[in-house]
């Protein structure tokens, strides 16, 4: 099993913003217990989905060569529950990005309704962590392909988003 909490990207603007959708299904096992008789998508997994939407955006900006970790969630507000059958649209916007990290604001919408919002930080690991492998760049590439990022994505200059040179061979 892979830890995917988004189904596909519907927008991907390199270095700026992205949107992804998450379809919530009763087939997801975690909904059976959360809660019995009232299946609600756990807030933590919505945060994870928003973080994946923004995290891959940050990783792509660094051409998947920097080690990016979700370091902090400064604020998260949930306005209403997300239930089986709902489609959530996660939006992520890079507010600031530099060599040591990125600040990203995210939202989750059910249709036009704001369902949740969060502000989060991604750190670029360096120093003693630089030798550690978190996720292989090729696995990022597979994930991006699976989520259709290169089918709908745009580079900073508005041209079609391309896979990073040197990683296509995998």
């Amino acid at each position: 099993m892979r830890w995917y909490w988004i189904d596909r990207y519907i927008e991907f603007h390199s270095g700026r913003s992205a949107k992804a959708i998450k379809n919530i299904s009763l087939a997801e096992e975690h909904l059976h217990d959360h809660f019995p008789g009232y299946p609600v998508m756990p807030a933590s997994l919505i945060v994870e989905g928003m973080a994946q939407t923004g995290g891959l955006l940050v990783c792509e900006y660094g051409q998947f060569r920097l080690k990016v970790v979700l370091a902090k969630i400064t604020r998260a507000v949930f306005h209403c529950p997300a239930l089986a059958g709902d489609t959530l649209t996660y939006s992520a916007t890079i507010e600031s990005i530099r060599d040591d990290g990125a600040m990203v604001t995210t939202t989750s919408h059910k249709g036009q309704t704001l369902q949740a919002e969060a502000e989060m930080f991604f750190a670029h690991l360096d120093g003693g962590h630089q030798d550690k492998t978190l996720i292989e760049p090729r696995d990022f590439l597979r994930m991006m392909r699976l989520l259709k990022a290169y089918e709908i994505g745009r580079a900073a200059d508005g041209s079609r988003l391309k896979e990073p040179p040197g990683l296509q061979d995998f």
Partner: protein
Amino acid sequence: MPTKEEVFQKVQNALVEALGVDEEEVTPEATLVGDLGAESIDFLDIVFRLEKAFDIKIPRGELFPEDVLTNSTYVEDGRVTEAGLAELRKRMPFANLDEFAKNPNVQDFANLLTVADMCRFVESKVNVTA
């Protein structure tokens, strides 16, 4: 050009948002780590907010020169050397290092910075009116 009071208010606001503390807790004397509970990742958060609030650029290591503390030239047996203290004074003219210099344990350094130090740091980056 902001006044000193405006600088303090914006710094206070940045710390309230970044650290989830109450406004009353953010006094000039409060230390960022000891009193306000800042952790290492919070410094990046604070730096981003200060850059946005004051439209300034804060290069890595300028507010918190962690590279000095990991440099073996400046640290011996967990203590900052005289050369290290001189380097810190040069890099952090906005902070009062006198107390720290009496017993310069590296692990105590994180608790050095106060809200007032941070205001002085920002004031050095923007033109402040009297």
